[in-house]
């Protein structure tokens, strides 16, 4: 078996998500090739070659791949797909954008968001916001798969020594162009790979009040997340959303503050190792998944918590 | 606390018990097919659950407030009302010629239940508008109809009913507000009290329907006329003109429905408020009576609507709250107080009573629908009799029972129920008005034994009993022990009621039946509710044998009916004792002995 993975990178560095996908590929077993497509991305290709378990890096450098445009990336993947038994993507916004195209172009089913590998053709994936786990089996000639990164422990980004091969670019699609981006700047770790996440919900009442969360996050070196309600209300930007339709996180510690615990939110965090809930309503469903629950007004509890962390 | 409209239960009554399909066959009601009505109920459930319900507690805490410049409704009210109008909910049952949808009353009642469950104070505004529209539609000239109805049907103008005066509440003969002829209109002067939504900031204009006396009017009820008195006069082109000489001088501080402004209205402080006569002089009260059935029915719907909200809240609390080891809990995690048998008793009482009341109200509405549209005159007359007979039961019984159920809802919460923050108390406070306005329960009872029973020599009642006997036969025939158990209690209750009715009719001294008429009203309400819930059991039992039947749902329907039969119908039996034996002692202690 041979597995192709579309590597994700930004700012000249491999995104951590790719290390989780390699882990999933190792669970499937077989030769692992990593495709690094980008503009001036040779340093990335070199870094990719060092990832544990990678046998080969395919490097394609072209302006078409500067901005992760789905049309261009999928065409490239399909152009080299021949011979692979599996093609894997991270189930990130970027990966979800490309994976289904590749599947469709190869006329096979896409398998979204796997959380476990049963065998080379059988996988487990959550459905219904994680209220059920489906075991699915693929008879397709090539398995095109999205990997839920939190479900696989990242492999080491060193220790490997793969060879780097150059592959030819495919003509860029002229119907689509990148205009710009508005990325939130944060000194905090990235949400999906952070060891600790602290999220705020509608109970925070305003964006300004998230300062209290930021303060604690800084002390714990945690990432900051939010419920949909907090994002919809404009307290924090969209990329903070944790849940069925936002980001899935599974840190060592997840602290939910002023979040009721709707199933759509739980879907994004209930695989966290330790869950703490702070909510003034003792009936809030979030307490049903919490390892430690604190029934309290967050406006008292957060300043106290911040102080206690100094000690 | 959230509200989720019981769409499935409501649809079950409409489709399987009262037979919406038959009503949709009537000319003019063709739109009211099961799938259309299903879609309407779904969207109404969304709207009431998402927009109206969240404002219920805000409305209670903030209330409407009065100032010189007018009445301000609570935060969020105005926006919700414009969404309500925008979506066209107010126009559901109104005639199509004035922009309504012309849907049957059974459908509009089903939708209105949701308004009142979600937010009773809010629901009152369109409810009053509906009363005013009915009155104008049935009795006013075409000119007045064209001028006022389209905007009222749309909901951008509201309507009010101005009957009550300080000295004239139940006894409207005592009305003193005066109307002087002045060319093509009249000048109205006087004070009205307790006028619901007499002033508010939700609509561009308010169309007051005012009962008043002409200078030459005969004394008493035969001398009262009905007038349209708009807050802003309406120009010939339909635009708004001058402000009329009327104002809201204060609003009441009340036990409940805080957001619904209850206004003292002063007409004609200066030159006199311009009013337009509806129909003929001195016929005002008669006009009021023709539309009274609808208004009273609507208040009855309010009665169980609010109880449904209280029930949902109580049920949710009972599942979560844990106190001690329960007898019915199956595991450690299953120890909510809902598993204490007595808490079950309360919840079953609430749920089964609500289903009985809903069944009765929708049956009554369906009777009016058939009475309005059926091609056969005899059927029309029979259904009109049925609707009129059931109306005082819907109003009187459902509102009184609604209060009791809201009180039970508080009980489920224990001490938390008494604490305002929980929200259970609000339902009880809100529910308390329903047995008072639109004619107190005593007046409903008088209506039942007087106008609705004695006047037609008991014909309507006998027809009702005959239909009940048919249901009894179906229950007895069914191959189901639960239905047989229902039949047993239903049979006894029917004969108790029959004997009591005979006793009532046989009294020569009016004091005796009058002393226990409210008991009789309750007895008949319980029995008629029992009939409806028994019919739902019969329907559920038939559906059980169909492919893909929703057995848990249908079994629950049957068991709710059996509970009702075994727990509520025996009160009909005891009612007989109370009515026939307590009348004398009721009136035998002199006032100065009290």
């Amino acid at each position, binding site marked *: 078996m041979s597995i192709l993975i579309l590597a994700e990178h930004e700012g000249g560095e491999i995104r951590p998500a790719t290390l989780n996908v390699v882990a999933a590929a190792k669970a499937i077993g077989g030769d692992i090739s990593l495709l690094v497509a980008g503009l001036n991305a040779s340093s990335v290709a070199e870094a990719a070659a060092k990832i544990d378990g990678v046998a080969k890096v395919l490097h394609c450098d072209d302006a078409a791949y500067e901005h992760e445009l789905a049309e261009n990336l999928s065409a490239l993947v399909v152009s080299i797909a021949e011979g692979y038994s599996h093609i894997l993507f991270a189930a990130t916004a970027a990966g979800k954008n490309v994976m289904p195209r590749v599947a*469709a172009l190869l006329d096979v089913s896409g398998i979204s968001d796997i959380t476990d590998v049963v065998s080379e053709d059988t996988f487990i994936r959550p*459905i219904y916001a994680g209220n059920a786990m489906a075991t699915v089996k693929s008879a397709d000639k090539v398995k095109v798969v999205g990997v839920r990164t939190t479900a696989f422990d990242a492999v080491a980004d060193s220790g490997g020594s793969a060879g780097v091969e150059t592959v030819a670019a495919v003509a860029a699609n002229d119907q689509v162009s990148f205009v710009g981006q508005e990325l939130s700047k944060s000194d905090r770790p990235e949400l999906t790979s952070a060891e600790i996440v602290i999220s705020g919900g509608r109970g925070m009442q305003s964006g300004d009040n998230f300062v209290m969360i930021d303060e604690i996050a800084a002390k714990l070196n945690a990432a900051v997340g939010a419920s949909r309600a907090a994002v919809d209300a404009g307290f924090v930007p969209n*990329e903070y959303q944790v849940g069925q339709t936002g980001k899935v996180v599974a840190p060592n*510690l997840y602290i939910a503050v002023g979040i009721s615990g709707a199933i759509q939110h739980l879907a994004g965090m209930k695989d966290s190792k330790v*869950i703490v809930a702070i909510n003034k309503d003792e009936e809030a469903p979030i307490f049903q*998944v919490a390892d430690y629950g604190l029934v309290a007004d967050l406006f008292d509890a957060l300043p106290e918590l911040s102080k206690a962390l100094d000690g | 606390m959230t509200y989720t409209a019981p769409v499935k239960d409501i649809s079950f009554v409409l489709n399987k018990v009262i037979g919406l399909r038959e009503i949709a066959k009537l000319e003019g009601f063709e739109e009211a097919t099961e799938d259309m009505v299903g879609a309407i109920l779904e969207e109404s459930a969304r709207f009431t659950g998402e927009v109206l319900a969240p404002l219920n507690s805000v409305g209670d805490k903030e209330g409407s407030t009065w100032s010189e410049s007018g009445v301000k409704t609570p935060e969020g009210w105005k926006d919700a009302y414009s969404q309500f109008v925008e979506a*066209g909910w107010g126009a559901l049952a109104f005639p199509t010629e004035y922009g309504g949808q012309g849907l049957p009353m059974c459908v509009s009642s089903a939708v209105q239940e949701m308004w009142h469950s979600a937010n009773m104070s809010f629901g009152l505004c369109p409810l009053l508008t509906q009363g005013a529209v009915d009155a104008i539609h049935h009795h006013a000239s075409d000119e007045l109809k064209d001028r006022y109805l389209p905007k009222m049907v749309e909901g951008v103008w509201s309507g009010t009913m101005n009957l009550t005066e300080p000295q004239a509440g139940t006894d409207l003969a005592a009305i003193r507000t005066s109307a002087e002829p002045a060319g093509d209109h009249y000048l109205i002067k006087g004070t009205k009290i307790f006028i619901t939504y007499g002033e508010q900031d939700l609509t561009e204009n308010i169309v007051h329907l005012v009962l008043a006396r002409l200078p030459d009017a005969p004394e008493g009820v035969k001398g009262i006329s009905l007038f349209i008195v708009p807050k802003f006069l309406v120009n010939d082109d339909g635009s708004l003109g001058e402000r009329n000489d009327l104002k809201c001088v204060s609003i009441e501080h009340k036990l409940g429905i805080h957001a619904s402004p209850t206004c003292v209205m002063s007409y004609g402080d200066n030159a006199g408020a311009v009013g337009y006569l509806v129909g003929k002089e001195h016929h005002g009260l008669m006009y009021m009576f023709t539309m009274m059935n609808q208004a009273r029915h609507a208040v009855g719907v309010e009665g169980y609507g609010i109880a449904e909200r209280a029930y949902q809240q109580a049920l949710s609390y009972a599942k979560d709250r844990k106190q001690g080891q329960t007898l019915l809990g199956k595991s450690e995690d299953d120890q909510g107080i809902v598993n204490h048998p007595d808490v079950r008793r309360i919840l079953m009482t609430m749920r089964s009573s609500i289903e009985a009341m809903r069944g009765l109200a929708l049956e009554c509405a369906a009777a009016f629908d058939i009475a309005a549209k059926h091609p056969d005159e005899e059927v029309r007359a029979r259904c009109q009799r049925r609707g009129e007979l059931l109306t005082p039961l819907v109003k009187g019984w459902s509102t009184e029972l609604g209060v009791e159920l809201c009180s039970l809802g508080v009980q489920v919460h224990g001490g938390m129920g008494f604490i305002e923050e929980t929200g259970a108390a609000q339902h009880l406070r809100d529910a308390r008005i329903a047995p008072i306005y639109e004619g107190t329960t005593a007046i409903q009872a008088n209506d039942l034994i007087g106008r609705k029973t004695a006047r037609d020599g008991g014909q309507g009642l006998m027809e009702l009993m005959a239909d009940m006997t048919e249901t009894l036969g179906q229950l007895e025939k069914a191959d189901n022990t639960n239905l047989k158990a229902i039949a047993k209690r239903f049979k006894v209750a029917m004969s108790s009621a029959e004997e009591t009715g005979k006793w009532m009719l046989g009294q020569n001294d009016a004091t005796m039946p009058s002393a226990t008429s409210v008991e009789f009203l309750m007895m008949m309400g319980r029995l008629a509710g029992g009939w409806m819930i028994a019919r739902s059991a019969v329907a559920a039992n038939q559906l059980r044998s169909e492919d893909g039947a929703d057995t848990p749902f249908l079994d629950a329907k049957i068991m709710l009916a059996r509970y009702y039969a075994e727990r509520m119908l025996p009160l009909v039996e005891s009612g007989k004792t109370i009515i026939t034996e307590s009348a004398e002692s009721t009136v035998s202690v002199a006032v100065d002995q009290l």
Partner: protein
Amino acid sequence: MKILVGVKRVLDYNVKARVKADKSGIELANVKMSMNPFDEIAVEEALRLKEAGHAEEVVVLSIGQTQSQETIRTGLAMGADRGILIETDDLLEPLAIAKLFKHVVEKESPGMVVLGKQAIDDDSNQTAQMLSALTGMSQATFASKVEVDGDHLNVTREVDAGLETIRVKSPAVISTDLRLNEPRYAKLPNIMKAKKKPLEVIAVADTGVDVSSGLSVVEVNEPPEREAGVIVGNVAELVDKLRNEAKVI
């Protein structure tokens, strides 16, 4: 321009999914079903584009059981003009759905297709991307803003690090994200009119589209349960437990 919108009938988002005893799937008999929330956003967006004068007709397409007609009627009640149901009792994979959409696209030639980014039942997040790949229509997924600029669209997308804007040429396939708009409530007169709007029902077999799939569901299980936790008395106790018991800080 004509806009084609996909609407899927799914278990209502308020209802907790329960796994069937025989592990073959989720219990869907006699439970409340509704339009997939992302599809409501899709219908809303199409209607707004029409109201802004960018489109003449909004067509809603559902693929599923007969009851999906209700979902289509919901879309028509919101204001869409016409509905198409491709009827099937099978649970089709996104690839088959995308092929059926392509079939309709070829017949209807819409200038835009708007789909939800995912259906909240299978959570696949694939159909829009597949449709774009199969038809060559431009792709703009996870949209939080759509601006029409002549024969181009400027689409702001929700990505992992924030927002990005791309410019795509029409015809395009859009998939909606949560912040794109807030769907309207249906108006009563429109609910009633919806019944009279045309709704064409086509059997899958009559489309000639191959809907077979290489993917099969072996079984569906409950997710692992979390062990019950404890309620702590105060912040000090919480911090102590996190440090000394769970050892996570």
